[in-house]
C-alpha cells in the first residue's frame, strides 16, 4: 500500500470524495511509476468530474494519457500495457459508456489470467462514475455493476464515502486482478468526511456494518448507502432500529456480516439503483435465502430501480430508491 501523500501532517482533514480519489490516485502513482492513468479528458481537463485534476501536470503526459475517443481502445490498450508491466487505471467517462468496452472486458480482461494459467497478470482498474440523481441526460445515470458481477474473472467494488474511496482506490490499484471500481458520482462533491491517513484500512473485499440495529437489516452499496443511513436515522425516530451494512465489495461478495445480521434481525431489505432483474441484489437474495433459511421472518425484499431504461431525469426521483421507499419496504418486511 502506497504511503499516503495527501498532506504531510498526520492530522485528519475534511475531504470530498472527488478529492479523496484524486489523492488516492496520486499516492498510487507516487508509489509505483508503473501506475498510469488513461481515459478521455483525464489530462488537462482533469476528467469531466475533475477526479484526475492536476495529475497530468505533475506526472506528465506519459503517465496520464488523454486517449482517443473509444472505450474498447482504452481497455484493449490498457491490457497490452499491463502485459508490458504497467498498472493502468482507466477512466470510463460515464457508466453508460462502458458498453463499447464490454467485449475487451469480458473476453480479454476477465479471461487472460485464466487463459494464461496465471502467467499474465491483469492489474487494471476500471473507474466508473455511476448511478443517477444528477439530473443528466440519457446514458449518464446508469448502474451497470451487475453485468460485471456476473462476469467471472473480474473483481467489482464500490465506495460509499470519501474515506473508503481514498483507501479502496489504492487497494484496487494494488490488486493483481482487474477491478471494476464504481464511484457514486452524485456524491463526489456532496459530502465531506474526515480522512485520517495514518490508519490501516480494512481489506478491500470486505463489507462493513455501518450502524447496528435489532429490528431489520439494510444492505446496500455505493450511492444507496447514504439512503440507507438516512432511512435508519428516520426509522430510529419511530423506534425502529435498523442495521445498515455497506457491502463495498460486489464481487466477491462478503456476506458473512449480512448473514450474522439477518440471523439476529430476521428481516433484510436490499437497496440498489440498478434494475433488479437478474442483478446483484437477486444474487444476495439467493444466498441469504439459503444461508438464513430458518432465520428469515420475511422474504428478503429488494428496493431497486425499475426494470426499465433509466428514465428522463424529471422522473428519476420516482425511479431511484429513496428514504420513503426503503422505509415502506422495511414496513412490509416487518409486517410480513
Amino acid at each position, binding site marked *: 500500500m502506497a504511503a499516503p501523500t495527501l498532506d504531510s501532517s498526520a492530522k485528519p482533514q475534511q475531504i470530498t470524495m472527488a478529492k479523496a480519489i484524486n489523492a488516492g490516485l496520486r499516492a498510487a502513482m507516487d508509489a509505483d511509476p508503473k501506475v498510469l492513468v488513461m481515459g478521455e479528458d483525464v*489530462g488537462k481537463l482533469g476528467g*469531466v468530474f475533475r477526479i484526475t485534476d492536476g495529475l497530468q501536470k505533475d506526472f506528465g503526459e506519459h503517465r496520464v494519457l*488523454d486517449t482517443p475517443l473509444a472505450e474498447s481502445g482504452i481497455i484493449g490498450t490498457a491490457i497490452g500495457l499491463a502485459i508490458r508491466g504497467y498498472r493502468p487505471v482507466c477512466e470510463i467517462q460515464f457508466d453508460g459508456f462502458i458498453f463499447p468496452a464490454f467485449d475487451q472486458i469480458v473476453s480479454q480482461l476477465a479471461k487472460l489470467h485464466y487463459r494464461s494459467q496465471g502467467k499474465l497478470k491483469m492489474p487494471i482498474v476500471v473507474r466508473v462514475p455511476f448511478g443517477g440523481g444528477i439530473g443528466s*441526460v*440519457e*446514458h449518464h445515470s446508469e448502474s451497470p455493476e451487475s453485468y460485471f458481477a456476473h462476469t467471472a474473472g473480474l473483481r467489482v467494488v464500490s465506495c460509499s464515502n470519501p474515506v473508503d474511496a481514498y483507501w479502496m482506490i489504492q487497494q484496487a490499484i494494488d490488486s493483481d486482478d482487474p477491478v471494476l471500481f464504481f464511484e457514486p458520482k452524485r456524491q463526489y462533491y456532496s459530502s465531506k468526511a474526515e480522512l485520517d491517513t495514518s490508519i490501516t484500512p480494512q481489506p478491500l473485499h470486505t463489507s462493513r456494518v455501518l450502524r447496528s440495529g435489532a429490528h431489520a437489516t439494510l444492505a446496500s452499496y455505493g450511492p444507496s448507502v447514504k439512503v440507507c443511513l438516512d432511512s435508519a436515522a428516520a426509522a430510529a425516530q419511530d423506534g425502529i432500529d435498523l442495521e445498515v451494512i455497506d457491502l463495498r465489495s460486489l464481487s466477491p461478495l462478503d456476506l458473512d456480516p449480512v448473514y450474522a445480521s439477518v440471523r439476529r434481525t430476521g428481516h433484510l431489505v436490499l437497496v440498489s439503483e440498478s434494475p433488479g432483474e437478474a442483478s446483484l441484489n437477486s444474487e444476495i437474495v439467493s444466498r441469504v435465502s439459503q444461508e438464513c433459511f430458518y432465520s428469515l421472518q420475511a422474504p428478503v425484499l429488494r428496493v431497486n430501480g425499475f426494470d426499465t431504461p433509466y428514465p428522463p431525469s*424529471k422522473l428519476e426521483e420516482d425511479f431511484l430508491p429513496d428514504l420513503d421507499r426503503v422505509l415502506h419496504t422495511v414496513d412490509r418486511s416487518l409486517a410480513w
Partner: protein
Amino acid sequence: MSSPERWTAARPDSPAATAATPTAEQVIAGLRATSEGGADLVQLLTPEGERVTHPDFDIDIEPAQLRALYRDMVLVRRVDRESNALQRKGELALWVPLLGQEAAQVGAGRAMRPQDMAFPSYREHGVAWCRGIDPTDLLGIFRGTDHGSWDPIEKRFGLYTIVIGNQVLNAAGYAMGQRFDGKVGNSDAEGNPAADDEATMCFFGDGATSQGDVHEGFVWAAVYDAPLVFFCQNNQWAISEPTERQSRLPLYQRARGYGFPGVRVDGNDVLACLAVSRWALKECRRGNGPVLIEAFTYRMDAHTTTDDPTRYRLSDEVEEWKLKDPIERVRAYLARNGLADAAFFEQIQEESDQLAVRLREFCVNIPDPPPDRIFANVYAEANPVLERQREDMLGYLAGFGGEH
C-alpha cells in the same frame, strides 16, 4: 498539406522522418494549424464575405436562397443562445451549444430532400431545424422530461444519439434499406437521380472518428454501396481533446482507405457546405455512395453547459475563429452586394426575438411527465413484469395521497 500517398508506397531507404511519420512541416500545415483548413478546403465564401469560385464544387444560388440560409443560421443561433440562457436560468438541466457550427449544419440540412433521412448526434440543432423539427421539440431532452420527442420516421430525422458513434451504424443500415427498396440509382440519361431517389446523412464529430462503430459504418456502407453521406463536423475539439489526439491526418482523408470520396469543406461557409452536401447526396442517390464530408469548423462555446473550456484551450484560438464567423460572412456578402437591405435584417432580428420568446415560454411550461411514464414504451408489446412494477408504484404513490 501532408501528402500521405507516399506512405502507401513506402521507401525503405528514405529517412525516418519522411518515410512513415509526418514531418514537422506536414504537421504544422496539417492538423495542428486548427484554424486553417489547408489547400484541399472547399470554400465559396471567404470569412470576409467574398464569393470565390471552386473548380469542382461551385453552385449557382439565388439571392432569395441565400437570404433563406442566412435566416436559418440566425434563427438557429438564436435557438442555441436562448437555450443556453435557459440552462443558466435553471430551466434546462443541460445544453449542448452549436455556436459556430451553424453553416455546417444548415448547409448540410438544406441540401437534403424531404425523403432523405438524417441521423444526428446530439449537437445537431441546426440540422433538426432544417428537417422541420420545431426547436421546442429539442427542449425535453435537456429539461429531462423526455429522451426525444419528435417522430423520426415522419420527420426523417433520427433521435439524438449520445453514445458516440452508435448512430453511424444505424444510418448505414437505414441507407442499405434505401438501396434494398430500389430508391437508389434510378438516374436518367444525364445521370440525374429520380425525384424519389433517396439518400441518408449521418452526423458525427471529430472525436467520434476513433470509435469502432464509425469504422464499421464505413466498412458496411462501402461494401453495400449504401447511399450514405458521412458528415463529420470537425469542430477541432472532443471536449478537451484536440483533433490530433484522434488522427495523424486530416479526417477527410480517412475515406481513402475505404475506397470512397472524402472532401474537406469550410464548415463555416454555408454555401460551400450546401454545395458539397448537395453533390454528395446526389452521388449517393446515383448509387455512388458512400461519401465522407469533413466540415472544418469550430466549437465556439463550451462542449456543454457543464464544461469549462478555459482549462484546455486559449482564448486566442477562439478569437481567431470569431473572425471566421459563419453568419457574419453571409451578412457581409448580402449587404455588400445589395442582396438584402436593412429591413430584411431587421425582420430576421424580430423573427428571432419572437422565436426566443416562444422557446422560453414553451420551456418553462413543459409539464413534468407523470411518474408512470417511467414504464411507458419500454416494450411495444405487453410485459407482465413491468405491468406489475407499474401498478406497485402507482399504488405506493397513492399511499402518499399524491403528495409525493
